[in-house]
């Protein structure tokens, strides 16, 4: 008697009547293993977590905007305080930016620099990846190449600027050569590391199934190392901007680096900073693009942790 009475007045029975109860959902789940659309009945914890993720995404955008705004404001205050033609205000830099886009000079500079980076970078990858794979795979190749590679990786691209200009002139070739040089080493060393990092069991199982040499290369080694090559290429891409500006600062007749030197000589500080602004934005854009492409096409090529 007592039990029945208690059940009738328990809060659980009330919720049951209202339509939603954990028991009922569980019973439904027992009857039907297919996921049921439970709409608002999502457990409160999960709802909270979802909203927190949304908040995190939103606040990251807000923080980005705040960060950019803070940078501009600090710059504006500094330029106002110093009141010097050497320190133009954000507004003047923006003007110069629009102006140089309008008369086409900036676009030409961008095109020239990007072209140099692209050619040097692509050539560097074309040489760096196979060489890195060969060095990783064949001890003889590694033994032969390693001393030279180890030596040259500590001679920075900037050190090669003068000889490059003397050998190849102030035109395209010297710039492309510098970008190429830098890309090759980064891609090569990373690719070599990637080969060394292939789990031994992957190689042994492939051996077990009787793979031929080229099958091992095309189906195991290459896919297993591609994420390493790409990581090297991304670092190289970032450094390419520094290298191309360095090369263009020394000797050039176009390009973003050249624009910085040229504007400096004419004391056109606003144009100079506009060129620098474009450099930074281009770098971010290139890196974002690389990351996007990697996430799209290389999702499964990244080594999963072995711990699990």
């Amino acid at each position, binding site marked *: 008697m007592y039990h029945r009475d208690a059940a009738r007045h328990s809060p659980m029975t009330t919720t049951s009547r209202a339509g939603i109860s954990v028991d009922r959902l569980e019973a439904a789940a027992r009857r039907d293993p297919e996921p049921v659309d439970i709409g608002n009945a999502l457990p409160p914890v999960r709802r909270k977590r979802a909203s927190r993720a949304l908040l995190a995404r939103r606040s990251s955008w807000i923080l980005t905007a705040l960060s950019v705004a803070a940078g501009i404001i600090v710059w504006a205050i500094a330029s106002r305080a110093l009141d010097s033609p050497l320190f133009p205000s954000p507004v003047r830099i923006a003007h110069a930016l629009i102006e140089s886009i309008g008369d086409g000079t900036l676009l030409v500079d961008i095109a020239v620099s990007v072209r140099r980076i692209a050619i040097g970078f692509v050539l560097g990858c074309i040489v760096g990846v196979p060489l890195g794979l060969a060095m990783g795979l064949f001890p003889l190749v590694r033994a032969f190449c390693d001393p030279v590679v180890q030596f040259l990786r500590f001679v920075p691209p900037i050190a090669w600027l003068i000889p490059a200009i003397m050998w190849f002139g102030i035109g395209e070739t010297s710039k492309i050569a510098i970008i190429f040089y830098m890309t090759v080493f980064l891609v090569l060393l990373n690719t070599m590391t990637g080969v060394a990092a292939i*789990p031994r*069991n*992957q190689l*042994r*199982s*492939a*051996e*077990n*199934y*009787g*793979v*031929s040499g080229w*099958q091992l290369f095309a*189906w*195991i080694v290459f*896919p*297993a190392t591609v994420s390493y090559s790409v990581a090297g290429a991304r670092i190289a891409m970032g450094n390419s901007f520094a290298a191309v500006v360095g090369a263009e600062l020394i000797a050039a007749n176009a390009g973003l680096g050249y624009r910085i030197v040229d504007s400096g000589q004419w004391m056109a500080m606003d144009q100079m900073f506009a060129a620098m602004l474009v450099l930074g934005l281009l770098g971010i854009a290139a890196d974002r693009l690389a990351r996007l492409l990697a996430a799209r096409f290389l999702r*499964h*090529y*990244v*080594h*999963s942790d*072995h711990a*699990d």
Partner: protein
Amino acid sequence: MPIEPVAARRRAADAGSIAIREVSFGFGAGRPEVLDDVTFDVASGEFFVLLGPSGCGKSTVLNLIAGFEQPTQGTVLASGRPVEGAARDRVVIFQDSDSLYGWLTVRDNVTFPLRVQGIAARERDERALAALKVVGLKGHEDKYPAELSGGMKQRTQLARALVLDAPILLMDEPFAALDAQTRSILQDELVQLSVTMRRTVLFITHDIGEAILLGDRVGIMRAGPGSSIKETIVVDLPRPRRRGSADFGTLYERIHRSISEEVQQALRREDSLL
């Protein structure tokens, strides 16, 4: 009295058999021998468990049979022929699931050994699907290894081995890295599978219970260095075996004592060296 497993009788005498004769192995001069005079036979269709303390060279024995390593002395025969390198008639299932190819789906991992042989896509997929069904992974074909649990990864490895129809399966502590529940489930499934699949299995473990649960015979290895087979015990219990049964307990005690002796002797040897 040694019993001949049912599966063994169904096969031709030599196909799928393993013979290790007076095998020694070391990683070069100046370093202690890993194996010293190992001899044992595994009959065709038999489920043979190699049991021993960690570091005793169990995996080395497996690597010799697989053809990943070559013995410094002695002979290793598979299906009556000397082992010269790895081959498709002896498929290895590794302890670490990192042998799965992370950039391939479960299906493509399982069809990989067939792709290597140039078998047509349609047949590959059919055989892979059949193997995945056997190991209970139907419906997970399009997942990537990173999306699988530890147990499912080992099931994928097993499917990839089964798809080849190799007469010999070499299993190197395949369940050691799994949680207790998953391990127990997979052990039970392997018992059922081994009855129907009629293949020779060399199974390596350091888990006594697992050895008794699975094996037709259990070979106990001495503690290294210079390890060999101490004794071979026939597991004369009807299947399916229950961990709780009295016979199971008696056998467990016997094997446990045998291994303890080994470990203690090894410790004494180390003491006397110091």
